[in-house]
């Protein structure tokens, strides 16, 4: 190469050396993709279009709907969808082995991919900001409200992309679609709920502020949870991601319950329950392989071995985790409901029935899996089967709820639909009277069997686990522990 020409490696200064290698790589690739370029150009065009209509139209509401629709679509649909193959593409391109030989671990790979996706979303949002300011000068717009709305949308986009990046850890396309549809449905309900609550303005009272803080905390936990799912799917068996996932779920759930003290009890119960439900579903759908380094960490003394029974990866420990958090959460809700300090002794109270119904709803598919698909427990399809059953139950619940609302006769349907704890949950949330002996017995029985049956069926695996924790050296090695 001639001396007067600069070395090509000078171009490598485009990103600082301290940035995560994965982030740099994904940004370099992502900014070149057609999808990003097209999304950016289209969004700018729509913004100009909205602005022109806003300048001509006397009513700002007409353009507001347009404006938010495009922003919503780009941030919550286009950008998250780009993460759909983020991790699985590494397998398709045969690059996962190469990554495992570097210093990047599964978590850094997953986090890097998600951060790069959100950095691109941030670029899109920054591109929108001038139009937000111009809309303000055209009048009829609450600028602060719009900014808070945009920030919340950005947060929702971050959560949605965490879901897609996390789901991309599954190599099976069916599984990824199942997870995406299930979580996408849940996210839409969540966003609809938030938008309905804050339709007029974001911060109107101290309770609103507490709710927003709770939503932000829950979303941050959600991002961590879904990214952890992705990381645990690409990580070698020697890395124990379950420990971190299960422990943080308990901490996040407890943090949510603290919001009861700010006058938003219902929200606090919903969020803390949902966090534990998600963590439990992930825990009791996990495959079993146990690696020596994982067993070794829990083999130190009786206490660590006891912790291992709940925190070591696998559905057999997952069911024990589910039992533990269900009991603690239900008791905690009773305690908080019972004038903070006096545990409610009346088991037929609505909050008691609903909290047990939530546990039963999460656990019900486990009974069916143990009875009809026991072989699926050992495979990655365990989760797909669980989600499929849960989706079928959700559809049945929707039909029953619809019938309930049409006929306005709740009790008859509850007794007809005793195997569906979700009906009781919906009924309770809709203001129907769910107190009483029968409701409690129905949900309690399902909750009991959903835990007892898998617990009983996992006794051989637990015996082997105890043995492995006593003598981890007898287990086969896994080399990917760097």
């Amino acid at each position, binding site marked *: 190469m001639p001396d007067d020409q600069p070395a*090509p490696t000078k171009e490598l200064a485009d990103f600082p050396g301290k940035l995560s290698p994965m982030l740099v790589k994904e940004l370099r690739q992502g900014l070149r993709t057609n999808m990003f370029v097209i999304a950016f150009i289209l969004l700018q065009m729509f913004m100009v279009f909205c602005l022109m209509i806003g300048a001509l139209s006397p009513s700002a509401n007409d353009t507001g709907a347009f404006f938010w629709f495009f922003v919503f679509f780009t941030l919550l649909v286009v950008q998250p969808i780009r993460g759909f193959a983020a991790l699985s593409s590494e397998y398709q391109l*045969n690059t996962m082995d190469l990554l495992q030989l570097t210093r990047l671990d599964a978590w850094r790979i997953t986090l890097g991919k998600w951060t790069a996706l959100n950095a691109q979303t941030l670029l899109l949002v920054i591109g929108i900001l001038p139009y937000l300011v111009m809309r303000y000068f055209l009048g009829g717009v609450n600028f602060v409200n719009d900014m808070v709305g945009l920030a919340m949308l950005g947060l929702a986009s971050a959560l949605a992309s965490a879901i897609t990046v996390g789901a991309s850890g599954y190599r099976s396309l069916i599984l990824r679609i199942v997870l995406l549809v299930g979580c996408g449905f849940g996210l839409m309900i969540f966003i609809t709920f938030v938008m309905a609550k804050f339709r007029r303005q974001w911060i109107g009272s101290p309770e609103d502020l507490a709710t927003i803080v709770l939503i932000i905390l829950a979303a941050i936990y959600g991002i961590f949870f879904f990214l952890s799912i992705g990381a645990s799917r690409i990580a070698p068996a020697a890395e124990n991601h379950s420990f971190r996932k299960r422990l943080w779920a308990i901490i996040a759930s407890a943090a949510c319950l603290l919001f009861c003290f700010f006058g938003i009890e219902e929200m606090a119960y919903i969020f803390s329950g949902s966090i534990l439900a998600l963590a439990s579903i992930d825990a009791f759908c996990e495959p079993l392989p146990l690696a020596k380094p994982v067993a070794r960490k829990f083999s130190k003394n009786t206490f660590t071995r006891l912790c291992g029974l709940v925190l070591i990866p696998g559905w057999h420990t997952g069911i024990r985790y589910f039992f533990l958090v269900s009991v603690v959460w239900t008791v905690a809700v009773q305690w908080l409901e019972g004038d903070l300090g006096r545990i409610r002794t009346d088991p037929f109270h609505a909050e008691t029935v609903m909290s047990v119904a939530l546990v039963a709803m999460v656990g019900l598919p486990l009974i069916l899996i143990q009875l009809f698909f026991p072989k699926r427990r050992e495979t990655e399809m365990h989760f797909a089967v669980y989600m499929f059953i849960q989706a079928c139950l959700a559809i049945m619940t929707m039909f029953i709820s619809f019938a309930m609302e049409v006929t306005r006769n709740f009790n008859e349907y509850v007794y007809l639909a005793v195997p569906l704890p979700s009906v009781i949950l919906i009924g309770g949330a809709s203001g129907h009277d769910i107190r009483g002996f029968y409701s409690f017995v129905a949900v309690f029985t399902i909750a009991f069997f959903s835990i007892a049956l898998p617990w009983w069926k996992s006794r051989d695996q637990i015996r082997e686990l105890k043995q492995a924790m006593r003598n981890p050296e007898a287990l*086969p*090695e896994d*080399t990917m522990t*760097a």
Partner: protein
Amino acid sequence: MSELKTKAPAIEVTNLSRWFSGVHAVRDISFTITPGQVVGFVGANGAGKTTTMRILATLDYPNRGTAKICGYDVVGYPSEVRHRIGWMPDHFGTYKNMTVLEYLDFFARALGYSGDERVERVQEVMDFTDLTTLCDRLIDQLSKGMGQRLCLGRALIHDPDVLILDEPAAGLDPKARVELKHLIRILASEGKTVFISSHILSELEEMCDTLLFINQGQIIHHGSSESLRESKEGQTVIAVSVAGDPEKLEEWTELNPGVRFKEATKTGARILVDSAEPDEVAAILKRMIKDDIAVTDFHREEVKLEDAFIEILGNLEAEGTAIVS
């Protein structure tokens, strides 16, 4: 400790076995490779080459036995092993929407290089693999040969002592193969140990110091190509061309002791004489002419490595034993 490691063999495999749900991919293999050697790993598809190499690269684990790189056990010290190996799989392993420079830079960052050191390493590797002029080209636009050079460059980023290359020449055109051979010879001259697999013997013969043959998960030969040929000592392969019907030649070999028909060619056949003595070979030619075989060409052929390998396989089938020389 470090002195001990520097004196250790580059690769040391002892009684290594690996099986997957009923399939025995590698069966109790043992071999040692000293530092600075270029060793060819030969075997048919499914013989166990890739499995062995993946274990050495810490990407898989053995069910039994041990494997060490520069004295470090691949199971016990995977991080130490990874610092010392450069792994090039049998597939490309590249990204879309990325330039050559960015690809190498990503791996340099991921391997812990920063600042000027990173830039220097990337530049050195590009110079070595002759990719400097292609640095701004997108990887998707590279030819297979260029892509393979890029993958070799990636494997060299952290300047490893041992290179494990799985079928690097597969699918390359002759020019690219020559370039790759040249690069591997340079690496060997720099003292790097190269463990390279292929199922094409002629390809490895020219660049390897020793050859390691694997068949059905077992090592059947470990030694130089010369030592492999020695197993056929005392025999001569002769290519004979005849005017007229070549089938006559096959009939003639059946009637003459000490001569065996090996294979038919377009104009005659390759025959095997059970002697390497020139007089006896000349006597065969005399006998042919005497028996009215219209010989138009008669010349001694060097024993092909493929033939030697196939013969070993044949012997093994007959004896049921492994040869390690």
